[in-house]
């Protein structure tokens, strides 16, 4: 009797939260009901990132038919784009066989100017076929929100990415709630990419904060190190009904998944046996103009480190801590 009342309450709560009543047992974190792979075509499934630690926290992965927010600081906008493209790729490849072969990417004109256009050849490198992508460029952010609300009602789409720039006040609790309801009704996954955005209360399922991370370097004995796979530090800042987390991950273009960066690559300061002529004696005219908006080293650091390093003809990487 008591157990059935509990189940009844759980059912009510899940209905209020807009979740399908899958009979998920929240206490021990295992699916007990008929929900997974059920008969309902709109039933949500979970799409794993590929990174096991993250997928564990996410209880299997990102839920489809929900809104997920991706935030990034101004400088980390491209990294957040990469994260969104990776997620979209995984959602798409999971849902394309189920008759949802398309991706809609909505952005306003300001994003185009500020962050550059989405480059189809770059998407190919990430394993996303540009042929399935439909770009919608809208004049104003509000139009983007309207377009997204419309697109989330379209059953032929796997995911909708809504890109916005700046602290868009439009994507507030009410707006995201509408998007979440539309997504739940149609089964389309919504990713809101908030470049240079400030988090506000929202109805999103998860909220990610993305920062760029130095890529792991594959080759060592070179004049200068090469670039590794795209890497980011992803913070799961909000997760409805689950734990938060923070991981450094990289995109594996071959497996088309996120994974942990190779472990030896994390301390890359000691590995460089061939020294690098990284810094000149004179910080140079460019460095002298640094106006405090330096994206590289912190202001002041180059002023002190410059002459110090210059005496060492070939300083090792990592700024001389190994002295």
């Amino acid at each position, binding site marked *: 009797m008591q157990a059935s009342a509990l189940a009844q309450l759980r059912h009510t709560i899940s209905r209020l939260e807009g979740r399908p009543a899958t009979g998920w047992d929240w206490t021990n974190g295992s699916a007990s009901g008929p929900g997974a792979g059920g008969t309902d*075509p709109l039933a949500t499934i979970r799409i794993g990132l590929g990174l096991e630690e993250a997928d564990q926290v996410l209880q299997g992965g990102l839920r489809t038919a929900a809104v997920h927010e991706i935030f990034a600081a101004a*400088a980390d*906008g*491209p*990294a957040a*784009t*990469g*994260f969104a493209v990776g997620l979209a790729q995984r959602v798409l490849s999971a849902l394309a066989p189920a*008759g949802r072969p398309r991706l*809609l990417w909505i952005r306003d004109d300001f994003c185009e100017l500020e*962050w*550059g*256009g*989405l*480059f*189809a*050849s*770059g*998407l*190919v*490198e*990430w*394993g996303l076929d*540009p042929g399935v*992508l*439909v*770009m*919608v*460029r*809208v004049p104003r952010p509000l139009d983007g929100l309207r*377009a997204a609300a*419309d*697109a989330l*009602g*379209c*059953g*032929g789409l796997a995911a909708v990415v809504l890109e916005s720039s700046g602290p868009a006040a439009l994507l507030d609790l009410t707006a995201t709630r509408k998007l979440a309801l539309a997504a739940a009704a149609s089964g389309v996954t919504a990713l809101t990419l908030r470049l240079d955005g400030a988090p506000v209360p929202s109805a999103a399922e998860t909220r990610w904060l993305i920062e760029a991370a130095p*890529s792991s370097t594959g080759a060592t004995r070179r*004049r*200068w*190190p090469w*670039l*590794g*796979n*795209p*890497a*980011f530090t992803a913070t799961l800042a909000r997760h409805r009904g689950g734990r938060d987390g923070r991981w450094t991950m990289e*995109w594996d273009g*071959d497996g088309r998944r996120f994974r942990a960066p190779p472990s030896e690559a994390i301390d890359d300061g000691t590995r460089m046996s061939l020294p*690098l*002529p*990284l810094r000149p004696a004179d910080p*140079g005219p*460019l460095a002298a*103009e640094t106006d405090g*908006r330096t*994206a*590289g*080293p912190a202001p002041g650091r180059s002023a002190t480190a410059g002459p110090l390093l210059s005496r060492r003809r*070939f300083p090792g990487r990592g700024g001389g801590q190994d002295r």
Partner: protein
Amino acid sequence: MVVAKIDNALRLTAVDDAAARLGIRRGLPLTSARAIHPDLKVVEADPAADQALLEAIADWCDRYTPFVAIEPPDGLLLDMSGGAHLFDGEEALIADITQAMARRGFTAAVALAGSIGAARALARYRPGTIVPAGTEAQAVAPLPAAALGLPADVAQAIRRAGLATVADLADRPRAIFSSRFGALVGTALDRLRGVGDVPLSPRRPPPCFRIGQRFAEPVADAAIIAATIAGLARDLGVHLERAGQGARRVEAAFFRSDGALTRLSADTSRPTRDAAVIARLLHERLEALADPLDPGFGFDLIRLAALVVEPLDTAAGAFGGGAEAERSFTALIDRLGARFGTRRIVRFLPGDTHVPEATALPVPAIDVGRAAVRLTPGATAAWQAMRGATEPPARPLRLFDPPHPIQAQPRPGLGSHPDGPPARFRWRRCLHEVVKAEGPERIALDWWRTAGRLPFRDYFRVEDEAGHRFWLFREGCDDPAGPESGGRRWFLHGLFG
């Protein structure tokens, strides 16, 4: 009184009735007119404004027939073939046009004839005439010879020869005129008499299907307008179905009672005759207007037209859910296209080039699948990744077009290489220290577009200390006479994820 400078003298180009009563006529020099009446009100001629007004009147005349042509400088030709009965006959039609023009402050001289040449001449010299088909020759006979519309010198020669009317010319053997005044006279005479008529070339391509709703009282209510559009869309759908066609572009025209005309058109990605779809697309277009549709004192005619149609077979309902998903997708594309413009909803086709900006051709999503797009070079090519196995992406996710110029500082010291990546660069007022780099990757530009020079770009993928990844290039040129490497500029072209 309107004056313009003709042959270095200010001459009158238009006079009003009061002036005409004083004996002031068109073509008179202004000084002579002032001698007749010193108190003339004079306005300078503005041919551009006249032209614009004529265009607006032509738009308004679209209510009578889709075949409207402009007859410079001040005439309009309407092809009413088979359409006069819609306006209660020819007399009523002419009366309607004259009255409607008079209400708007214009004096219209109207004539109706079976050939363009006759109608044109009669409107100017015998306004109000209606000529039964086949009797054009008799109707134009009493007109003055000037009605032929010949060049001034020829017309003067004819007048000097004592030939006053069209009949004078028509009764005489043709060969005389040809030898004396040129072949033009014969042709003009034929046109006037309805022989060897030239077809009228309408201002706008005539629609394939057109249907309208006239209102006795002008309507301004949005609900009535929406209901009218829905009803017209239903009728249009019936006509389309009867012809086995579907509309690719529909247009709604709103004729305001004061003469203003607003046209809205919407495209569909596949032929449709579904009234609900057509009505909703036009509704989207109405919503998307920057300044809302101003009904003023109301619309007295709302019309729907299918401008582009394609054959549409009765849809064989496919089994399975794929067709439904596809249909909802194309409906979404159409709606967004109607709201934001079809050029803003794009899909990418691979371009057949190495120039990065051109590797992806944005094509309106609505056009993908059309024959013209299928023929685009590269439309059949497949996307291919540039990176090798286990390698990171070779192309950025975001591309700036045009590339952003940056200030780059070369790598100094012994280990440096003149063609290597920069040690640091400044972009958008931020300094980035390059810690990892890969390159150069040389991409040659289209040499056949730049005569004699062989421009190329040396691309580098670089990463700064924070892990931001950039796609830089240094422009170069295999031109011995070109700029030295010292003058080669750096650009930032893209951002990696």
